């Protein structure tokens, strides 16, 4: 384990816990951005430059802003009067702990993942572009369609209902 990995992993996990447990929703959103940035740093550390930058561009630039706008529009930035956790929170935490237990058990006992680290592949943006336009062109088109549909759909759902009001 290297020192940069330890620092990034700690920051990512700590900010994820904060994002899930803080009282003020805007703080949750801001700490979530730290988690996303930490994940981008992990991608960069793993040699996936393009994905790391795309992660920053999409999550910090777009999703973050969407979330804070949603928080402001729903007046959720004021702390709630009642508990912020639902009544059955013990069950939820139990399930999550169980899932983590199973996953970590599998990871630690598996022999298939004792992979050796090869020298970093020379991944260029050109290669990604060639693959996107060649082998993966159909998924690319589908995702374009999906994003367009999501754009229009989100705008229509969130639009003010014109009926009844002037």
């Amino acid at each position, binding site marked *: 384990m290297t020192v940069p990995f330890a620092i990034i992993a700690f920051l990512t996990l700590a900010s994820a816990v904060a994002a899930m447990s803080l009282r003020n929703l805007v703080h949750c959103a801001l700490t979530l951005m730290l988690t996303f940035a930490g994940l981008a740093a992990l991608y960069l550390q793993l040699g996936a430059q393009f994905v790391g930058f795309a992660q920053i561009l999409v999550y*910090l*630039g777009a999703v973050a*802003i969407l979330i804070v706008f949603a928080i402001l529009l729903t007046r959720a930035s004021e702390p709630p009067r009642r508990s912020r956790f639902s009544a059955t929170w013990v069950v939820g935490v139990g399930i999550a702990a169980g899932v983590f237990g199973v996953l970590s058990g599998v990871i630690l006992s598996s022999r298939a993942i004792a992979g050796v680290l090869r020298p970093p592949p020379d991944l260029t943006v050109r290669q990604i572009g060639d693959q996107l336009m060649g082998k993966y062109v159909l998924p690319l088109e589908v995702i374009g369609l999906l994003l367009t549909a999501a754009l229009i759909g989100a705008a229509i759902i969130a639009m003010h209902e014109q009926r009844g009001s002037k």
Partner: protein
Amino acid sequence: MVETMDQIFVTLKHWLVGFAPGQCQPLFSAVLSVAAIILAFATLFAVTTLLERKGLGRIQNRYGPNRVGPCGILQPLADGVKALTKEDVIPDTADKVVHFIAPLVLVMPVLLALAVVPVGRNMAALDTDAGVLFFFAVGAATELSVFMAGWSSRNKYSLLGALRAIAQMISYEVPLILSAVTVIMAAGSLSAVRIVEAQSGYWGVIPNWYVLTPWGLAGFILFMVAATAESNRSPFDLPEGESELIAGYYTEYSGFKFALFFLGEYLGLFAVSGLGITLFLGGWHAPLPGLDWVPSWLWFFAKLLVIIAAFIWVRGTLPRLRMDQLMGLAWKFMLPMALVNIFVAGLWRFLPGGVGRWSVCSILVVGAYLLLGRLLAGRKQPGKRVYRYAE
């Protein structure tokens, strides 16, 4: 001699790095690059504030600052001392931690963005394969800082200014990136250094810059307009419109933190102008074949100063837009125009060179411009201008 002057900073850095012990050399080299960026652009920031105040003064028929030093050239120094010694006021109800972090979140990504801009031959601090993407990615983080500043101040003007700024930045990021896409298509690379290399050479005495093609000119104009809006400068300075919102999202900032915001805003302007130079204006290449003896970094900063002068001129000339006009310009005009421009750039790539390619592409760009302009202005018939005077 010419070669020495051109590479003087690179040689200097290599010489300095040589003093560091073996293992620390990469780190030391990075620190040196960062220090050089901060030093160069902070100096440029000081020069620009003075130029801006002087230039605006001239445009508005007054002197501008002329008290500190000869002709007022020490004014930035006085401004700096004033900002550093002022009391740092934090509102009582503010979210202290977020309020404190916001200016840092603005300045850091901007400095990172400056790292990928090649300011001279072999003088990009970070030559990565996805440089332009990196630039836009870290640029996106500034929106978060604006939100943090506006929200944490607990002030309605701050929040309104921040929401305006974010809406504006997101809207204009789309044409900004789409107009940069044309250059990425033509150069076939996302690396800023490679894009500058692709614009080397001359056609007779005319440089091979992308701005000297039909799609390049349209792309450059779109890019610079979007850049003006991205950096919240007049005529797109609604987020900090003094007459409506006091100072927008940094109303509640004072002293050093305000200075940081100011610095971040100008550094952002330099960064995006630098990217514009890299993408369209040939980076550090000389504009004429015979002028190669001038050091490349000097050319870059000369172009940057010209663009800054243009920004100051625009600020002194154009009035501020209304919010709906601002959004309309981004979504109804610039976005379709940028998409048409991408198509034209693709056509340019595949048509055989010559007069035919020039005329087809020019007609397409100009036609789209006229058509879009006509469609948008179609319903509104400007009536006879009426003047009303105060009684």
